[in-house]
């Protein structure tokens, strides 16, 4: 399989440093305190935030700060073969790394003894769901009015067919050489999540990281636009 041809064009017609289309909508669920729906290429993700509310069970409370409880879940119908429902090793790991990423940006000290629930539901998966989930959850958190130092946005880069590429598609993820999901806090530029699957040389890693951060910045603009749109009518729109 040729993941990227001699002209540097990828299987889906993208250039090496080109992202898939991303669409974000904030405030889609009425029962949740904050929510967002995101489409990233073939990924469809719904994120809902509840809280801060009293942490239950009591032993999970922290007297000095709120705990962030993230639950990443893939729907049974989100992949080609039916996925056995329920938490597995992979989704537990992703839930953990996403919780830890958010604990870095949420001003948890403002809500001691409370918990903030972040639910990420993958409705349809096509490579890069942890980045898509994180991006959607960041918008949902902002929509829920939770104080944060900045918005998190995420994007993956990697290597496929011998080329460093941005935002891996499904075939590139499955048959490529490496995958590097990165999430950054926009205000400080801090990296809050970085994982790597596969091998990259130092030079390739540097380039992949640069691509990923550039991707994060692109995603950040879309997150901002989604939040602005949610409250556009509230800013005196309609009658100016």
């Amino acid at each position, binding site marked *: 399989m040729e993941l990227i041809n001699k002209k540097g064009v990828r299987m889906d017609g993208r250039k090496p440093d080109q992202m898939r289309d991303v669409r974000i909508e904030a405030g889609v669920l009425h029962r949740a*305190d*904050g929510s967002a729906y995101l489409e990233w290429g073939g990924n469809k993700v719904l994120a809902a935030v509840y*809280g*801060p*509310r*009293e942490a239950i069970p009591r032993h999970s409370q922290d*007297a000095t700060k709120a705990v962030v409880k993230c639950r990443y879940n893939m729907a049974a119908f989100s992949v080609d073969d039916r996925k056995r429902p329920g938490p597995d090793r992979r989704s537990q790991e992703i839930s953990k790394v996403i919780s830890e990423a958010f604990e870095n*940006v949420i*001003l948890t000290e*403002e*809500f*001691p*003894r*409370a918990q903030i629930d972040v639910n990420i539901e993958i409705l349809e998966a096509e490579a890069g769901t942890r980045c898509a989930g994180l991006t959607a959850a960041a918008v949902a958190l*902002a*929509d*829920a*009015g*939770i*104080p*944060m*130092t*900045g*918005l998190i946005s995420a994007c993956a880069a990697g290597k496929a067919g011998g080329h460093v590429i941005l935002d891996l598609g499904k075939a590139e993820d499955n048959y490529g050489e490496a995958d590097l999901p990165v999430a950054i*806090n*926009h*205000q400080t530029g801090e990296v809050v999540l970085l994982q790597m699957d596969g091998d990259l040389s130092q030079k390739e890693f540097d380039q992949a990281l640069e691509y990923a951060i550039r991707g994060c910045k692109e995603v950040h603009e879309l997150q*901002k636009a989604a*939040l*602005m749109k949610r*409250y556009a*009518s*509230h*800013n*005196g*729109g*309609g*009658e*100016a």
Partner: protein
Amino acid sequence: MIPGDKIDDSGRYKAGPGTYFIGRDIFASRLGLLAERNGTLGVIPLSGVYNPRPGDLVIGIVTEVGPSNWMTDINAPYPAPMHSSETPWKIEFGETAEYLRPKDAILCKILFVDENKKVQVTMKEPNLRKLQGGQVIEISPAKVARVIGKNGSMSALIKKYTDCWMFVGQNGRIWVNGDLPMIQATIDTIRLIEAEAHKSGLTERVEAFLKERAGAPKVPTTPRMEAEVQ
């Protein structure tokens, strides 16, 4: 403002609620609208939960009865106990259930909030009481200020048209009592305010809505406050 947006780097302002600072730079920490007041920059949130502050008047709902205290839900992330000595009644140990039972709504005041956000409420002040009759509705705590209006102008407007008793708790719970059709008109008006809280010209629209729903302003009837106090 979106979390992380830089609000100011001149160093001439103080960082207010909804913001944080690094050196001279002030950044927004919440989604909301920027507001400047007496040299302090703050962000007025568009959403979020109720964060209890001492002195706030809130509507609590009793969830548990203990021998000498009650647990109340004040719509905050934290449960709020009320000791039997913090009531206008003289209560013997173990007789708490004769005064307040679970699901009773009370008008109470936040007595104190400590650094661990341990909250206590009190009813030991004039006008604080058990709410009997009427209805309690919930709105987003971020919209409470709009329902009250500047110096209570919005709630006064609603009361003028509907002649209802209304009490707006800082925690987003509102108690309404009066004639049944007027209670419904009041609730619909509050829902309108909640939906359009950040649009301009709100007062005019609310007044037009009230005229349509409730008719002409009513002559205030005698205060019903006395009848309501237990």
